[in-house]
């Protein structure tokens, strides 16, 4: 073990540490000393970081820490390995973001060992949340040909705008998909994810205005006070793996619509193209044209509380009646597989013969739409008791484009 280190982290004469199995790590550019990473740090030793691999299989499904793992075992038979490097992560952020390199090297080493058992890295899928996304990127860089990497809200500080060897990037695996739930700039909004990573990009709920809860509710969001406080500190940031977890159980509940921006998504980019929309989360690799385009931005909305999947419909209502009124119009969809709540289509001045169109993110997939129900109400009392109806209602389903 070779260990040379300039003691002042700001001095940064280029130094290097080497560890058996994993190789050498320098604090040269681009790892330190750039505008994005000003503080010089060397990664800690593997012994100090103490990365541990916890295996869960169908036979041995005792639920330890990662809920996603256990949920995955309900839909398929896989070897789920939870990588714990908490000793290397519970330290200064600048240090933790350099320890990422050692943990990534450990995973790459493990994949190499699997190779000796003729287990192809193409069978490996690494899911990393926050800093862990860059761990996955590091592992993928060291061991080319890993099947898939999923970055759940990759951490932003110390990684945004850095060269691709530092951060998660599309070259790190054969297929890389990223879920963004927290892309506001770190200062002042304390967002913590990375914008320009790679391939399939999912932005949930316009990525900034995620439905957050007020302080008390967030702190008590579940009976488990621990998850409650976690939600309060990083409600947006932690949403990404909750979406992933839900997407395992609801394969078609998280369709991403390719669009230029969230504002455009709110008014257009509907329905899915003939090839279908990519699924956010677990089933993203099913998307047929997945590697044809290098950078696809996909947008979708999710529900504000548990059971996050939503199914997008476009509803147009042509009004009939005699007088103009002020109020709102609600529509509920009914189909083979149940019905939805009432969703507001329009609020304001309602003119007969006008057509009002809106997107409805329904909490149920109703199947083939058999009927719709229309309801309106006026916002102020109107003693003339006006009547209003819907002449035609058109419903288009986002997944298939069916009208």
């Amino acid at each position, binding site marked *: 073990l070779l260990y040379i280190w300039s003691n002042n982290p700001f001095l940064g004469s280029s130094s290097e540490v080497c560890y058996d199995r994993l190789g050498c790590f320098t604090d040269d550019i681009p790892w330190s000393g750039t505008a994005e990473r000003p503080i010089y740090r060397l990664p800690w030793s593997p012994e100090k970081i103490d990365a541990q691999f916890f295996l869960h299989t169908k036979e041995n499904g005792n639920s330890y820490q990662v809920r996603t793992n256990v949920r995955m075992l309900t839909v398929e038979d896989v070897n789920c390995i939870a990588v714990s490097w908490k000793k290397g992560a519970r330290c200064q952020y600048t240090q933790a973001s350099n320890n990422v390199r050692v943990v990534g090297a450990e995973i790459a080493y493990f994949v190499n060992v699997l190779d000796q058992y003729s287990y192809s890295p193409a069978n490996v899928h690494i899911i990393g949340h926050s800093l862990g996304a860059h761990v996955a990127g590091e592992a993928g860089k060291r061991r080319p040909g890993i099947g898939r990497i999923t970055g759940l809200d990759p951490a932003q500080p110390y990684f945004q705008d850095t060269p691709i060897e530092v951060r998660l990037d599309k070259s790190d695996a054969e297929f890389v998909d990223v879920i963004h739930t927290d892309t506001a700039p770190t200062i002042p909004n304390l967002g913590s994810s990375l914008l320009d990573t790679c391939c399939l990009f999912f932005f949930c709920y316009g990525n900034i205005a995620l439905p957050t809860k*007020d302080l*008390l*509710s967030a702190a008590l*969001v579940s009976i488990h006070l621990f998850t409650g406080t976690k939600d309060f500190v990083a409600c947006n940031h932690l949403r990404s793996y909750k979406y992933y977890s839900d997407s395992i159980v609801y394969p078609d509940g998280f369709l991403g619509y390719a669009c230029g921006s969230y504002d455009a998504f709110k008014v257009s980019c509907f329905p899915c193209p003939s090839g279908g929309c990519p699924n956010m989360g677990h089933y993203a690799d099913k998307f047929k044209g997945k590697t044809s385009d290098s950078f696809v931005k996909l947008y979708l909305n999710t529900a*504000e509380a548990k059971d996050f999947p939503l199914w997008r419909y476009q509803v147009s209502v042509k009004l009939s009646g005699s007088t103009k009124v002020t109020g709102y119009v*609600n529509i509920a969809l009914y189909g083979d597989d149940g*019905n939805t709540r*009432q969703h507001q289509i329009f609020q304001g001045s309602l003119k007969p013969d006008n057509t009002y169109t809106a997107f409805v993110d329904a909490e149920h997939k109703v199947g083939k739409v058999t009927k719709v*129900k229309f309801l309106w109400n006026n916002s102020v009392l109107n003693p003339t008791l006006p009547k209003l109806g819907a002449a035609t209602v058109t419903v288009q389903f986002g997944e298939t484009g069916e009208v």
Partner: protein
Amino acid sequence: MVLPLRLLLATLLVALALGAPSEQGLIFNLDTGELCLQSAQCKSGCCQRDSGLSLARCSPKAAETQDCSLKSLYGVYYKCPCESGLSCDADWTIVGSITNTDYGVCYDKRDPTTSR
């Protein structure tokens, strides 16, 4: 004289716009998932809890074919009342109204295809 009057009008309008109810409230106008004591606090109009010991949170009202309870004076529900236009097919009972358990299923009175 005309200019100050216009100015006054403009400031009034700005003040009105600023004073308009915000999207998210702290005591009233609460979103789904936020803690509540009374249904009147919620945007959805239903403050719901799962059991007598659990915390109450704002929840959406029950859609057609979902479970519901009759409107009660408590203002907190185990099962939310129905959305507007729908009725809850529960029968009113004294015990049920005291224990807040007048449960039913939402249905549409005017819909001939759904019979009670």
